């Protein structure tokens, strides 16, 4: 049975009920939200089973809910598309979403706006599902904007803190810059094919009824939206700040789901990117550059959540690298395993913060593995997954991308990606060692303790997923059937995924070296070795720790001139010049009338003189003319 409408309806109903009556439900708001999520998750599983029963090749169904509007050639309905790609995405979003909802009932315990948190969380899941189920670009865009709204609301959930409010606004505006590009991309496509339906556009791209130039323009503009939403260079700046939100939000929205929307978009529109080869290369280059750049920043970051934020940016870069070189199946595979292990990392970080009374500085952690054994165990699994240790999930998915890059002959991209992967192993090991190994450095009066069951159980489930997620898509060389790829291929196209043992060995060796390096610097006793390394690096260390001053550069080069310009418009141009001209004209009229008024003295004799003079002039004029 296909229940895609229910997948959408359940979280929407939850959000509406909680927004309207959440206060009355109080503590049980969490339960309501979790029930809504469970319904959605079960519906997603049932629909997935249904889809699997359909023979491969015919797995794409369309649902028309209602007519939205029709203007000229623009016909838009609220239409859903359920196919392997949206099935995989909905299952992941509802599954991870459910776990994070459950975790949140523990994490947000005692918050005065508890009910509102769950209302926003439900609304977010609805919006994300709308994004992945939409059959036309308009509703994809609607979901896209609504997840942005939820992100805004949840980053700024503790809006009393100025930093949270600023981060929320920054996230919304930065992503909206990208979204505007995406909107223009939608216009370009409509002007070209007169439809906004994704299958129609993809078919037009495949059969060549879109010109290559148009496809390139549209693909690049759509990618602008992806760059904003998925926090790639140059619009990534909002994501590290977004860590001001409650940690479950960082896990769900800013790691597992929303930020992957950009990858989803590129994969979904893959025929367009196949046609626009140059645009696809831009995607790959931006992806790999971001992967390396963010990994470098993560190596020098001291805030546990921000390390994970940079890590997310970097991992998304890997996904774009994959999508850019046409390895869409691998990109989606990595998207899903990343959702498991990255949300786990965030939940683990949240658990650490919970145990340490809100502490986020790695400098004030250390030796936590004894106090928080469960958290340590799950974090270890996540570490294995992201670093790419066999048999953890990340090994299969990241290496699938790298193998495709290599097989496609993109040597330069491969080298940069490999260095980024090495940095990944380093910063992740560094985080693990700083938090759980070495000497205890937490502040006075802090008593680390393990988190409640409602938090540990979801983490444990995600840990299992992080270990065994690779089974979803075991490479054929390892006697697997590449099931996920086979499932997705009809939608995303078959990629050049040759198994290369060499690639695997190189990636492994790099990760091992980086891990040992991190062990040497961070895992032992005090942090003296770290100081030595920092001193050696000198200005490089400063530059990286200051994030290459990008925020400052944006503030000076973009924000300040705009602000100055706006002030000029408001203060000088509007008040003095334009309004000045209006008032000036009025003054002129009234001055002129002053002059005329003086003539009206009210004395008959002066009027008589005037009449006489006028008559004389007239006579003179007539005489002169007739002469």
């Amino acid at each position, binding site marked *: 049975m296909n229940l895609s409408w229910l997948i959408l309806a359940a979280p929407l109903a939850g959000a509406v009920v909680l927004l309207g009556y959440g206060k009355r439900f109080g503590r049980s708001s969490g339960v309501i939200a979790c029930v809504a999520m469970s319904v959605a998750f079960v519906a997603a599983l049932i629909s997935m089973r249904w889809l699997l029963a359909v023979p491969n090749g015919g797995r794409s169904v369309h649902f028309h809910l209602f007519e939205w509007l*029709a203007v000229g050639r623009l016909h838009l309905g609220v239409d859903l598309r359920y196919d392997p790609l949206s099935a995989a995405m909905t299952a992941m979003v509802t599954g991870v979403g459910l776990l994070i909802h459950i975790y949140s009932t523990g994490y947000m315990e005692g918050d005065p706006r508890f009910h509102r948190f769950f209302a926003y969380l439900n609304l977010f899941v609805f919006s994300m599902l709308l994004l992945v189920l939409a059959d036309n670009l308009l509703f994809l865009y609607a979901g896209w*904007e609504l997840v942005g709204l939820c992100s805004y609301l949840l980053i700024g959930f503790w809006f*009393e803190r100025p930093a949270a409010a*600023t981060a929320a606004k920054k996230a919304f505006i930065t992503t909206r810059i990208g979204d*505007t590009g995406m909107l*223009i991309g939608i216009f370009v496509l409509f*002007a070209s094919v007169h439809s906004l339906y994704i299958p129609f556009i993809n078919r037009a791209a495949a059969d060549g009824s879109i010109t290559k130039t148009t496809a390139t323009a549209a693909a690049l503009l759509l990618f602008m939206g992806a760059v904003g939403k998925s926090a790639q260079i140059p619009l990534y700046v909002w994501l590290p700040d977004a860590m001001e939100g409650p940690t479950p939000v960082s896990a769900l929205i800013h790691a597992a789901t929303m930020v992957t929307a950009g990858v989803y978009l590129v994969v979904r529109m893959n025929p367009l990117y196949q046609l626009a080869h140059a645009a696809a290369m831009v995607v790959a280059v931006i992806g790999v550059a971001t992967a390396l750049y963010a990994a470098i920043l993560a190596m020098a970051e001291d805030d546990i959540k921000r390390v994970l934020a940079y890590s997310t940016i970097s991992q998304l870069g890997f996904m774009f690298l994959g999508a850019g070189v046409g390895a869409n199946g691998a990109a989606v595979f990595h998207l899903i395993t990343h959702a498991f292990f990255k949300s786990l990392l965030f939940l683990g970080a949240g658990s650490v913060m919970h145990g340490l009374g809100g502490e986020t500085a790695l400098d004030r952690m250390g030796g936590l593995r004894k106090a928080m054994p469960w958290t340590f165990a799950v974090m270890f699994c996540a570490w294995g997954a992201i670093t790419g240790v066999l048999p953890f999930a990340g090994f299969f998915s990241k290496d699938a991308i790298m193998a495709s890059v290599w097989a496609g002959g993109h040597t330069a991209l491969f080298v940069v990606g490999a260095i980024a992967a090495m940095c990944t192993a380093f910063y992740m090991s560094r985080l693990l060692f700083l938090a759980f190994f070495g000497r205890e450095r937490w502040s006075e009066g802090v008593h680390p303790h393990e988190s409640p069951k409602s938090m540990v159980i979801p983490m444990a489930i995600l840990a299992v997923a992080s270990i065994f997620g690779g089974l979803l898509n075991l490479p054929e060389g390892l006697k697997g059937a590449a099931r996920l790829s086979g499932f997705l291929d009809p939608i995303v196209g078959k990629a050049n995924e040759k198994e290369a043992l060499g690639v695997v060995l190189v990636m492994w060796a790099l990760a091992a070296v980086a891990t040992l390096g991190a062990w040497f610097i961070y895992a032992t006793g005090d942090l003296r070795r770290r100081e030595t390394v920092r001193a050696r690096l000198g200005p490089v260390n400063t530059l990286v720790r200051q994030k290459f001053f990008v925020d400052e550069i944006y503030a000076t080069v973009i924000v300040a001139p705009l602000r100055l*310009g*706006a*002030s000029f418009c408001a203060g000088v141009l509007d008040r003095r010049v334009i309004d000045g001209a209006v008032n000036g004209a009025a003054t002129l009229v009234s001055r002129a009338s002053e002059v005329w008024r003086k003539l009206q003295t009210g004395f008959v004799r002066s009027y008589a003189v005037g009449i006489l003079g006028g008559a004389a002039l007239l006579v003179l004029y007539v005489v002169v003319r007739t002469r």
Partner: protein
Amino acid sequence: MNASNFPWLSLLLLIPLAGTFLVALAPRDDALLKRLGLIVSLAAFGVSLVVFTRFQVGVSGFQLIESLPWVKDWGITYSLGIDGISLFLVLLTTFLFPICFLASGRVDKRVKEYVVALLLTEWALIGVFLAIDLVLFYIFWEAVLVPMYLLIGIWGYERRIYATIKFFIYTLAGGLLMLVGIVTLHLAVRSHGGPVTFSVQTLLDAAPKLPFGTQAWIFTAFALAFAIKVPMFPFHTWLPDAHTEAPTMGSVILAGVLLKMGTYGFIRFAIPFFPHVAKAAAPYMMTFAVIGILYGAAVSAVQSDLKRLVAYSSVSHLGFVMLGLFAFTLQGGEGATLQMVNHGLSTGALFLLVGMLYERRHTRAIEEFGGIGAAAPLYSGIFLIVALASLGLPGLNGFVGEFLILIGAFGTNRLAAILGSGGVVGAAVYLLWAYQRTFNGPITRDENRTLKDLTAREKLVLAPMVGMMVLIGVWPHPFIERIGPSVAAVLARVGGR
């Protein structure tokens, strides 16, 4: 008389006018007078709903037409009619007035005159949108000015006299230009052997046959009058002053309905009467529209007074409407027509909200606030929804209009559409920045700690507005379906697609 030719439009027009007499004769009991105003405006709303149900979907021309001769020698008639362009503007008018009366609880100065002024404004506004005779239209057009002048001048704030005189003279000057245009049009049609008439329907056929030069002059006169009313950059400077000094209900009506007289004038008269000139003027109009969008957003962003900020945002939003109107595509034209209604709802609601804040704290300076989201959660939540509607978030009304306008403009003028899209980012900047400074962060002033959240009456005022925003945003089909044919008919004249 059977129901099919019952003069519903005349009845609609008569109700607020009769209401003014009723109120004028009623005893000076403030509560009673306000209630009377509410009842009269609700009655008008009820009749407008009847009009809505009798309105035939799929018809492009005027419906429910009534026509009586007035000055025979000049061909002046009392003619009313409604089509897809005016339908929702009339409904917007009759929808907003009951809300205004409901929200006027705090008015205590010369209440009788206040109610009379509001009802007269409603009467004249309905007349503007229903009149299909140019002389009748002109009379209503200028008739709006008088009660509005009084509303700002008597019930306004400190600099109300300066503001109201500026408003009056500026828009009166525009109106007189239009009068010259109307008379010239009449005479020109006559002298070219056309009919002796002021009827809109007849002139729709006759006006485009005039020599291009004559058309150009008359178009210019009309366009100036409408551009001032919209107001289009650079004729907008009366607006922030008028809004800032006007009482809350004055601002709601001004932004909600009055400004649409200008955009309505373009699509009803200037464009279909003079399609060739309009086509030639389109690139310039779109240029000014785009400047207005970006300029309005920029100036909004740096305002320190909330009400002024909302006022400048109107310049930006109406820039969108103008962009859509002169795109000459179905999406642009229908989007613009819908956006007139959308702007009326969202900006009207923003002014109501700012007014509620002013009633509590007697200031509108953003710096006086900060952190009040914690003190008044419901108020701040509604404010956010309205702001999001205004900045074009999907799911709310503003998005539908903006999206249609931009996708329509892209069809004929890519650069204008791309630059105009910048306004989408601009709106997020000025609204969310203002929102942050007003509602987020810690509470910095003690007066704000005890700020009262929405009262039951205020909830009643805001609920229908928010409801409409959601309805249009989620299901625009019934609106677009009615707007469509009439806009298409106008665009067919300019060769629009």
